[in-house]
């Protein structure tokens, strides 16, 4: 089994995030015109009254033509342009975006095209650009990784964490291992320790690395 979360799993998690919809139905026989689910009481559903629901529910309702999904406020051209500019202007930090912004955008681009109207292409492009700028920052960060350390990555999103996980974990695990070899001796390797010729170059290499 892959230790990473798969992109499908990330999408599954992102489907719990909230979007606004405009329903075109009501549920007169259910109390408060709402649906009591395990994850909460969703609703009330009244025609033309916007309501906040999880994305999985929004998509299911939209597929049955029971609602219209509204464009999230952070996912319009102005907000994204702002985020992109900020992202470019600040080399050292990541902008605060929803933790699942890539997955949510992807789901909505597929299932709620109408929500974006004529902006769809522009919004898609902006999300792609933001992602590119952020990943290039990550790559720049990877280049300065040297030696065992703890890395701070505030505001990195779920999908971005997942992409860089193998590189970061692999490199940091190995750095840590090498650093601990420098200071500790290994059980059962006593004879190795006594052979100065063997032990010496190994230490030396690590000191200059």
């Amino acid at each position, binding site marked *: *089994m892959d*230790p990473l*979360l798969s992109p499908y*799993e990330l999408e*599954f*998690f992102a*489907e*719990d*995030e*909230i979007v606004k919809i405009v329903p075109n*139905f009501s*549920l*007169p*026989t*259910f109390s408060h015109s709402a*649906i009591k*689910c*395990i*994850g*909460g*009481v*969703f609703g009330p559903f009244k025609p033309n009254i916007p309501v*906040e629901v*999880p994305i*999985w*529910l929004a998509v*299911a*309702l939209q597929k*049955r033509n*029971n609602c219209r999904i509204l464009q999230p*406020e*952070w996912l319009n051209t102005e*907000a994204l342009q*702002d*985020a992109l500019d900020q992202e470019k202007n600040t080399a050292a930090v990541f902008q*605060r*975006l*929803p*933790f699942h912004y890539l997955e949510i955008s992807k789901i909505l681009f597929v299932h709620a095209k109408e929500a974006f109207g004529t902006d769809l292409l522009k919004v898609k492009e902006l999300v792609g650009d933001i992602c590119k700028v952020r990943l290039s920052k990550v790559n720049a960060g990877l280049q300065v990784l040297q030696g065992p350390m*703890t*890395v*701070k*990555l*505030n*505001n*990195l999103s*779920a999908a971005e*964490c997942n992409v860089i*996980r193998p590189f*970061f*974990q692999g490199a*940091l*695990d190995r750095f*840590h*291992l090498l650093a*601990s070899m420098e200071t500790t001796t290994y059980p059962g390797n006593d004879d190795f320790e006594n052979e100065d010729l063997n032990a010496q170059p190994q230490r030396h290499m690590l000191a200059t690395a």
Partner: protein
Amino acid sequence: MDDPLISQLLSPAEHVYGESDLVLMKKAYINEKAAPELLEYQSDLLARLQDQVHNQEDTVANTDSSDAEGSLVRAIWRLELARAKHLLRAYLRTRLHKLERHVTAVLDDPGMQAHLSPLELQYAKDYFIKTGLHLKDAVTAHLPEEFNSLVRQSNVSEGHDMLSAPDLDAHVFVRVLEDRGAINLDPEGDDVVELNKDDLYVIRYQPIRELLKDKWVELV
């Protein structure tokens, strides 16, 4: 964009509909998936969620679906049930997978055994016996006697030194849930990290092990 709006966007599901058991289950699953060792079995949470799933299944069965309203609500309930069951399965499977990988280390340590459910413990024992018998048959029976143990490198080893223990020094991605202040990364205390709410770190698992248990941090 102003900050309150954004911070609401970062975990809106909990803000709008509260921390349901489904949300807790999702977090437990992600923690389990990302942690190198087997975490404590979430017995209360699983029991509650399984209860809710059964109740909801009964509700679905007892709801009239002849009208449009009933069939819509039933379809939504079914969809949510499928999601909840998927999550439960994913959690249990992830644990079984980790259990199989570290079975000798888990069975060797009563502290780790305490992290298992009774069924998982039974599974671990059965799994160890079956794979152990097979390995003995196929491999160790053909080795010299002093090297034919499954858990010791040789006869002169002190204790069990050939266990597939989880690597607690592995690095994990961790998000800080509450301000915790500075923590020491190693026993000598010359490597200090400041943990503030919403910080995201790539950090060694060992120093944050207890913090994870006490819900100061979560894995991502």
